[in-house]
Every structure is written in C-alpha cells, then in structure tokens.
C-alpha cells in the first residue's frame, strides 16, 4: 500500500534525487526486507539480530573516556510468542522510514507513531498502543541498521533551550542567541552541520543546567552576559539534540562545558550521560559524549558549605540509595576517588538537594555567588 503511494507521488512529482546518506539508508532497509523474503522462501524462521542496548553490552573505553556499545545482540524472531509483535513492529518502522526517505520528508517520532498506528486486520489490536511502545523500536532499528535517527528521517520532540554570546545559522536563518529575550533559543532535535552552522562565538564556556526553572533564573540575572558564556538546559535528561550541540560547541569551538545539576543520583547520571554517553544510546557516544565536561554541583558538601537550612533537605528513598550504589559501580566512576567520596557522602547525608535549594538562601545566590565561586576556584568534579 505504502509502495503504491510512493509510486504515485514519484509519478506526478519530479523524481527525487536521493542524497548519498539516503541511498545508503535505503539500501540497508531493503537488505532488511530481503532477509525476511529469503527466510520465507527457504521456509525458515525470519529473525533480526539487534545489538542489545543494555548495561551488559556497553564497554567503558578508558582511552576515549566514553561508553561504547559491545557486540552482543538479541535475536528477534517472528515465530516466537514474545517477539512476534516486536518483529512486526520493527518492520513497520522500517517501512515508515523507507516511505519518509522516498517522500523526502521528516517526521517526529510521535508523528511516525501516528503514521504507523492502525488496527490489525481482523482483530481489535493496534500495531502500536502507545508511543512508548514505538520509541524503543525506532532505537532498535537505529542500532540494527547502524543508521542515526536523522538518517531515517526521524527526529524527537525538541526539548531544551539556549541563550548566550553566540550567533548561529539554523536552516538558513541567522540567530543571535544573545537577543532571545526571556524564552531563549529552543534547541532543535537535529543540530547537524547541515542544519546548524556556528557563525560567531565570543563566549568562553558553556554552563549547562538541569532544568528550565534554574535556566530562567540564570537568564533573568543575565549570568551569560556577566560571565560571557552560553547557557543551556535539557529539561532533565538532555535529549540527543542538546547533547549533540554541547558536543559541537566543545569540539568545534573549544568551549569547556560546566554542568550544574541536582545533588542526587539522577543529577549524577545526567552528568554521566553528557560526559560518557548513555547506556541506551551507547552507539551514539562517539558523536555526543563530552569527556571533558565538568560537574560544578550541587555537591554533597554544599549543605554545610553554603549553610543551608534543614527545610531544603529531601530524604533519600530506597530507590535513590540503590541507584546511587549502582552509579558508584559504573566503571567510569569506580576509578575516581573524588566521585566515590561524593556518592558516599550523599548516602551518609541521607538527603538530596535540588539546585533550587540554593534559592532558599537568596534569590540570586546561585547565579551571583555559588556558580561564579565554583568556576573561579576551579572547584568541580571531573
């Protein structure tokens, strides 16, 4: 059916000229379809060997200081009770990607989910019930084909903002990030050089904060003006667009990256993802991880150091403790005594701190005292 649509569109419109990247992705998708056809013809059970995206299949490369994906794969079979649907879904996503490449269009991953979601004939079951079901399949296809999301003509919902002394060109439009008002420049999902070029940058470093509220505080206090920097946030765990942009700012413009995150296991892990790459998307680490990123805070010692009141403490729960111990064992943390001390102190404290805790001391304490002090003293964790 999809084939027909493509045919008709190519028949009426001028034949599309595929880029080299599109041609490569298409041939990978076709090879995938060919495997299923060949297996069916031979009367064999069609299967896909999908590189596994788990902790057990990531390797810490001490030399490059990033997480790399290992070689183990999970076999996904069509004729396996627990995998049949996932197999079908993987091929659906492949079909969707092929369709997008043929049409020369891109879709958000949510858009693709809507594009592919339909009632399976003769049942009351949908191909996908929720987007949460679709997203991991897209990631599976990325690792399976060794193609990036953008090569499949897909992008994630954008998240994260930027402001600072930099001028860039986004899809041909010149954007001066020092003139973005209170809202800032929304970092797009795809920030590849084809889309975004850096035109002029006077900033000396990048301060990445965890979430929008803290970012707004810094923006309002014109921190980036006073300290000549770029200010970004990723609304929690930063999406790929933000991470890729940080990577480019660091590697292409030579800007150091400082992170100001919550003092809890989740804050540690956000830092870890920016620095070494994520376990789930280990295959993207080489083009996203910034091994030189520094962790400014909050630190476990900040409660005493900054003289905070008891009211800002949030007690650690069981999940927090377990997660903290897990993180302490990650090979990229295990070797670092300072980090081991940091995590141990968090556990000893028995409470966590959000960046907002500093606001309890003074509205602008975090922008006017805490952060400048850390940077000035080069007081950070690596």
């Amino acid at each position: 059916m999809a084939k027909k649509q493509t045919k008709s569109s190519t028949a009426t419109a001028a034949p599309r000229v595929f880029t080299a990247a599109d041609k490569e992705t298409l041939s990978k998708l076709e090879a995938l379809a060919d495997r299923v056809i060949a297996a069916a013809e031979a009367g064999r059970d069609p299967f896909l060997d999908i590189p596994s995206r788990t902790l057990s299949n990531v390797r810490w490369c001490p030399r490059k200081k990033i997480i790399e994906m290992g070689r183990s794969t999970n076999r996904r079979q069509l004729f396996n009770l627990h995998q049949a649907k996932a197999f079908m879904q993987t091929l659906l996503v492949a079909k969707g990607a092929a369709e997008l490449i043929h049409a020369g269009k891109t879709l958000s991953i949510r858009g693709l989910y809507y594009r592919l979601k339909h009632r399976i004939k003769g049942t009351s079951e949908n191909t996908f019930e929720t987007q949460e079901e679709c997203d991991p399949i897209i990631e599976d296809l990325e690792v399976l084909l060794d193609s990036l999301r953008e090569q499949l003509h897909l992008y994630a919902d954008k998240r994260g903002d930027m402001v600072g002394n930099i001028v860039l060109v986004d899809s041909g439009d010149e954007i001066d990030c020092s003139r973005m008002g209170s809202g800032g420049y929304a970092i797009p999902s795809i920030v590849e050089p084809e889309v975004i070029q850096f035109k002029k940058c006077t900033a000396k470093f990048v301060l990445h904060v965890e979430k929008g509220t803290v970012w707004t505080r810094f923006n309002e206090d014109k921190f980036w003006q006073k300290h000549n920097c770029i200010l970004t946030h990723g609304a929690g765990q930063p999406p790929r667009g933000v991470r890729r942009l940080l990577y480019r700012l660091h590697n292409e413009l030579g800007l150091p990256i400082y992170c100001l995150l919550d003092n809890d296991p989740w804050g540690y892990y956000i830092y870890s993802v920016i620095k070494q790459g994520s376990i789930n998307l280990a295959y993207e680490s080489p083009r996203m991880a910034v091994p030189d990123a520094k962790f400014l805070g909050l630190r476990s010692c900040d409660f005493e150091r900054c003289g905070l009141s008891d009211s800002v403490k949030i007690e650690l729960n069981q999940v927090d403790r377990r997660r903290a111990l897990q993180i302490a064992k990650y090979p990229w943390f295990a070797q670092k005594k300072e980090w081991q001390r940091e995590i141990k102190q968090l556990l000893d404290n028995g409470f966590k701190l959000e960046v907002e805790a500093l606001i309890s001391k003074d509205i602008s304490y975090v922008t006017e005292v805490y952060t400048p002090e850390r940077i000035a003293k080069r007081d950070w964790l690596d």
Partner: protein
Amino acid sequence: MGTNKEIATQVEDGARLVASSSDGKGPGTALAPRRRVTAQTLAAAQRDISVSEFFAKNRHLLGFDNPRKALLTTVKEAVDNALDACEEAGILPEVWVEIEEVAPNRYRVAVQDNGPGILKKQIPLIFGKLLYGSKFHRLRMSRGQQGIGISAAGMYGLLTTGKPVSIISKTGPDNPAHYYEVQIDTKRNVPQILNGKGEGVDIPPGEAGVRWMQRHGIRWIDVPHGTRVTIELEARYQRGRGSVDEYLEMTALANPHVTLHYRDPEGNEKTYPRATEELPPEPKEIKPHPYGVELGALVSMLQETNAPTVHQFLIGAFSRVTPSIAKRICETAGISPRSSPKRIGPEEAEALYRAIQETKIPPPASDCVVPIGEKLILEGLRQLVKAEFYAAATRPPAVYRGNPFVIEVGLAYGGGPTVQRITREALAELLAESDARTLRQFLITQFDGLGPVGADKIIQEAKLKRRMNPAKLSTAEIDRLHHALSTVNLQEGQTMTVLRFANRVPLQFQAGACAITQTTTQMNWRAYGLAQSKGSLPTGPVTVMVHMASVWVPFTSESKEAIAAYPEIQREIRLALQAVGRKLKMYLLRRQRVQHEGQRRSLFLRYLGEVADAVTAIRPVDRERLLERLVAIARKKTAEADMKLDEHGRFVEDSELLDGSVIIVDERQQGEEAAAVTPQVQEAPAR
C-alpha cells in the same frame, strides 16, 4: 423371575433385637418400683414374631420409606433378580420395565425378563415367602445381596393396595406358562395362591395361550422363556435424582451386556441396547481368605470345624492356603500342625492369628469377582455421558476382611451438564412435578453436577428469584429458565458427578456416608488438573463412576445404599481414581497444549499480514506469495510443538494415552481451523 432370595444379616439382627426388647424379663421391669404385671401375664403376651410381620411394621428397613422410594425399590428388586437369574442361567439378559399409573398415587409395575423361568412349585415360595433363597449362605458375587427380595415388594403392594403379586413364568417355548396370583400371609410367612382355587393357572403354549391372555387382560411379551412379575402399589413417580429413570440409566451403564426396555408412566418408551454380546464370566464361590479373618471369627471357626487337625483346618477353611503355607503358619505360631482345632486355646488362637498375618499368602483368586472391565466401562460411559475424554481403570483384586473385591473406575471429562440438554417440555414437567420448596432447591436436587453456585447463576441469568415456588412459574418464566439453563456457562460452578455401583447395582442414596464419595472427596484432584476446594468434590465437567465388585459388599446400614469405609477399600478406590486421574491430567495437559498452540498460531497469523505489508512496501515482491510462505512456516512451527512436546518441553508419546483404557473424542481439528480463520481477541503479548 430369579430363583434366589436373600436377606441381610443386619436385618436379621434387627429382628432379634426388637424381639428381645419386648422380653418381660428385661431390666426395665426389674427396676420398676411397683409390680404391675406378673411374669405369668407377661408370658401370655410373649410369642413368636413373624419376620413378615416385623418387616410389615418396619418397611423403611426394606427401602419402602416413602412412596417415591417404594416405586424405585420395587423396580430395583425385580430387575436385580431378573439379571441375576439370567446370568446364572447363562442367558444374555433382556429386561422390560413397564410402569403404569392406574389411579392417582397408585402404580402397576411390571418387570419381565428372558430368564430361565421358574419351576411351578417354586413360584409361590419365591414370591410369597420372606427369607427364602440361596444367596445368603454363600460367599459369591451377586446383585441380590443388596435387596431384601421381591417378596418384600409384593408384601408392600399388598399392604398398600390389597392387590396380590401376579407372576407368569415360562421355562421353554413348548412348555405352558404358569400364572399365579400370590400374596403373603404376614402372620405365618407363607404364600397364599389366590387364582385357580389355590393351584394357579397353566396357560398353554402357542396361539391358545395368547388368546387366553388377551381375554383375561394379561400382558406378556412373547419370549421362549422368562418370568414376568406385576405388582400394584401405592407410590409416586418423579424424575431426577433417586428416580427409577436414573436407576435404569445407571444399571445400563454398569451392565453393558443387558438390553433394557423401559416404559415410564407417561408412556414414553426408551431402550438401552446392550453394548456387548458377551456375558460376564460366571463368578465362583470361594472360601474366605486368611488375611481378612478376625481373631473372634477365627476362634469360632476353630470351634465349629470338623477338620481333625489344625493343618487340615487351615487348608479346608480358607482359600489360597496350600499344605506348605499351612505348615508355615503352624510353625510361626508354634503350634503342632497335628493338634486338634477344638483344643486350641485363646492364646494359641491369637498366636495363630498373628502367624497368619505374618505369613505370605497369595491374594484370593480373582475369578470369584467379575469386574465390568475397562473397555465396557468406557462403552457404557460413552452412552450415558456426552464428553470429550473417557478413561477407565480396573484394579487388581484386593482383600478386605478376607473378602476379595475389585474396584473399577470410569471417568468422563468435558461436555455440558445434563441441565443443558433438557428440553423445554421436560423442564416444564419437572417443575410441575417437583416437591422442592424453592426454585434453587429444585435446580440443585434435580440436576446432577449442578452445585449451588451454578443454580444461582442460572436463576440470576433467568431474572428469577431463588425462593420462588418451582411449581408456580409462568410460561414466560419457564422460557427464561430454559434459556438460562442452556446458555449459562456452568463449567466453573459444576461439581463432579459421582456414580456409585456395588456388584453392578447402582447406589442412589446416602452418598455422604459412602466410602466411594468420601474417598473421591478426600483425593487431591488439583494434582490432576481439576479445581477443588478443600473437603468437597472437585468442580468441572467431570463424571466419575466407581464400581465395587465383591463376594460380599460391606454396607454401612440395612438400607444398603452406602459402602462402608474399610481402609483397604478406600485405598483401592483411591488408587483406581489416581490411575484415571493421571490419564485425565495427561489429556488436560495435551488439551491445554493444543489450545496454547492454537493461540500461538493465531497470534503469529495475525501479525503475518502486517509483516508482509511492510516487507512489500520496501521491496516490490508478491505480497500474497510471501504471506503464503509465512503462514506455511507458522503452521509448521505450531504443528511441531503440538505433536511432540508437553508444557515442560518433554516428549509425549500419544500411545501412552491411548492404551485402550481411554477414549478421546477429538474436536481439535475443527477448533484449530476456527482459530485460524478468525483469530480471537486477546491481550497483546509482552515484548
């Protein structure tokens, strides 16, 4: 009619008991503060009690407690005797049962057989005298042990209607048929012949006889030889549990060599044809087995024997005791084999008793007990219950109290309960006849295997009330009830139906007191794939029949409707149930696997279309061909698992299940096709 009549020990004991308590010298008078009567006046009132008189006053002991049961007992006695007579003569039995309502609450029961017939002079004694017969004094398997004899039924008829028993018996095609009208003289326990001036009438063979019978309004089905007994009695006819219909149905099940013709009071005729042309082998009379003898019994046997030596006594009085075994027993007991049995003292007797238990003696000969056999049980069950799976097991002979016995079990699984097969008309009739006070009670008592849960479900579905009077339902309400009966899924609410038999005779009452019910309830059926809550029968569409064949079936009471729970008997019942249980479990596992595979297949099939769509969208190949290939693989995949593996991934040989003691009515093929065409809706599998 049968040549045998019997009476049970319990009744006899009862008679003695009553007689002695009317004895004036009892403790009652001794303790009285003032003398009211003298020994002389008492002596004048003391006299013999006729057995007949005793039974006339204690009719419940004979199974004539109420009009409904009286009808059943009458039919039962007549049919049991007919079957025993035919089998002893080596004739394949064919029995006609005809019940006719002559007036409200008054029925005429006629039972005719194709047995050997009865000699003229024996007829009045057999039908007109209690405690006359041959079965009581021997240790041999027979039906007759259950009842008290046809003469009791005749006596009941006489008491309630004043009509005598009429008997026609013919011993050969060319012999005249003897026609008697007999009644029992209850005072003297002697028969009185009423017709032919106390001599009876001889009906000539051939045309003349037929005409004579027509003239006198006597019904006779033309068989070369046989007996027909007709009794008129006060009774009540009702279908359902404990009914004549149920008795005949169960009798047909346990007696696959019998053809039964039945005409009920409404004129409906039904025939249960025989499933085999082979008569069961004739059971042999045996002596008691030493293992079963109790110390007291052993002492009295020693006293009564004529054997000159203990050695000879042991060989002569018991079965399976060879000279060498007898010698070994004597050695173990430390008694000289040559000592006289009369001189054995209490201590020596006890030593002898213990020596018997310690000595290895072969089990009693099994030819004295004739089981129905697995094959015929399966046949019978198939005719009685519509199910998908049948299994049967016959245990090797065992012994309780020296009496050999055999337990056999049949099991039917699947299919709806009887409720779901009932017609609208039959339901309306049942409702009108019922004496149940509430609708709920009606449903529970009328239908086997329908527990309170099922009854409630049906009533709720029919939008009726539980406490409604079943006889007063409107037409629309009956319609709703009938609809609910046939549609409500009773699989869960249904409890196991247990059919009990002793020497091929159905046991219809006192289920709770019976070793069969008790053992079935105590079994852990969950181990065999059935749901069961503690202390009750398992639930599910299961029918179990348990048959105890023995030279002497131990009943719990004089009413002879429950088997006593001897540990040996319970053990055998349990082992037999376990044997069929294991087969059931294998079947259920297989069925589950088949269902599982069906689901698996439908799951694969539902995604294949999508896969084919996706692939052909990327590569322009023939979608139909691709789909066809994929479907073929799916079928192959599921078929393989289907055939060879059970849920643990072990190989299952089907021959293991199909060893002749099992019948499976396979509806799998249809089910699978249905699953393939319209995949059923089910939750998405976890990824």
